[in-house]
């Protein structure tokens, strides 16, 4: 199939403004199928905005984005198609507090016509098993710890069987002792070959699973490379400074 060869994500000249502030400055980025990308950079560098453009949580003003061969920026039906293909995990979990864990996981598959109730629940239980909390299915999000909630959020996204997963600082809102359980879940996912774009400051995670690390500053990609080179031999002054600050 051609779909295997075409890039998972292709961004060309992507430019985003918030009012007068330019959040993304003509970004070019290609992500291959199965590639694991970590995006890092100081706050306000546009890294979250970058991955949020990939499912059009942020609309862009200029440029072209193609996801799995579907041109997102063409609009219309394509937006919904891309969103079905792209799962997202947020810093604040954003679980639906009025629904149980299981209902959180089955809502989108049911409403988008992906699955009937029995199939959706079976899929949900499968992914809750995968993130190692099958026993919490009937609880409400507020009854779970932060780490458990984030794992539910990952399972919820996986229930749509996405081909690409976006992570927007998934461990930043967690207590330190819960970071590991979420990272372990993400590492498992990476090992299974999921295409992933992760905005994170967890450099150990980047070293362990990333194929490529991207450093952003002021809305532009400053430097990118495989983790060994990225951490071992940073070329730009700004990346050296950044790595000095976070380690």
């Amino acid at each position, binding site marked *: 199939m051609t779909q295997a060869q075409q890039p998972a994500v292709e961004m060309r000249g992507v430019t985003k403004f918030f009012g007068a502030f330019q959040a993304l400055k003509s970004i070019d980025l290609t992500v291959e199928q199965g590639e694991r990308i970590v995006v890092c950079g100081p706050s306000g560098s546009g890294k979250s905005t970058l991955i949020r453009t990939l*499912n059009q*949580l942020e609309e862009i003003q200029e440029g072209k984005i193609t996801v799995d061969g579907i041109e997102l920026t063409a609009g219309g039906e394509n937006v*919904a198609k891309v*969103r*079905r293909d*792209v*799962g*997202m995990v*947020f810093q*604040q979990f*954003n*679980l*639906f*507090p*009025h629904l149980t864990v299981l209902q959180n996981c089955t*809502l*989108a598959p049911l*409403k*988008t016509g992906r699955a009937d109730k029995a199939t959706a629940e079976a899929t949900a239980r499968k992914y809750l098993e995968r993130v190692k909390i099958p026993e919490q299915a009937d609880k409400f999000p*507020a009854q779970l710890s932060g780490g458990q909630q984030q794992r539910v*959020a990952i399972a*919820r*996204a996986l229930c*749509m069987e996405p081909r690409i997963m*976006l992570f927007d600082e998934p461990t930043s809102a967690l207590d330190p002792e819960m970071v590991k359980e979420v990272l372990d879940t993400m590492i498992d996912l990476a090992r299974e070959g999921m295409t992933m774009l992760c905005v994170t400051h967890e450099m150990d995670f980047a070293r362990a699973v990333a194929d490529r690390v991207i450093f952003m500053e002021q809305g532009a990609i400053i430097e990118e490379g495989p983790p060994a080179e990225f951490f071992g031999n940073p070329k730009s002054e700004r990346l050296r400074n950044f790595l000095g600050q976070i380690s």
Partner: protein
Amino acid sequence: MIRQFGPSDILFIIEAVRWTLLLSAIAFIGGAIGGLFVALARSSGSKALRRISAGFIRIFQGTPLLMQLFLFYFGLTVLNLPINPLLAAAIALTFHASAYLGEIWRGSIEAVPSGQTEAATALSLSYRDRMQHVVLPQAARIAVAPTVGFLVQLIKGTSLTSIIGFTELTRAGQIVNNATFDPFVVFGLVAAIYFIICWPLSLYARRLEGRMRLAFTR
């Protein structure tokens, strides 16, 4: 002829309660339907819809309910429709309630964290599904207490329809008073009946508010 205030007068007043309740129910149900549309328009992505609904709210919140009643009442005759106090009152109060409930519910919708909409959007849910299954159920919890509070205002507001000649509780009181000229007793009774209807609702609203606060601190 002035006659003595008697049991038949009490019965007459109590019977008029049903008109107050009917009018309140019509206005509340009509206002709930209208208010939902106003709230959705107010919090929508379309600038035109937001402006129109904001204008609607401003007009109905910025003019006295009594003027609205007059305008709808006399407006019917301008349109060559027969004068019908119940119809005029029902329409005016429905618009009035739509504006207030619309504004209350807009606030409730906006109080639901934006991350909820984002997560639902990222899951590829349509606007309708996002609203129906994610945002509105959460907004409803926030809205219950102020909505019941507004219902109390609305029930008391129906008393103004007595001025356009609709025989609800207050008008019944006026009629009885005109015959018996015992205003303190008559309007004391009328006020007591309003209180009996409204007080439990106020208590209920306060209890819901307490429960909400508990839910938020948990």
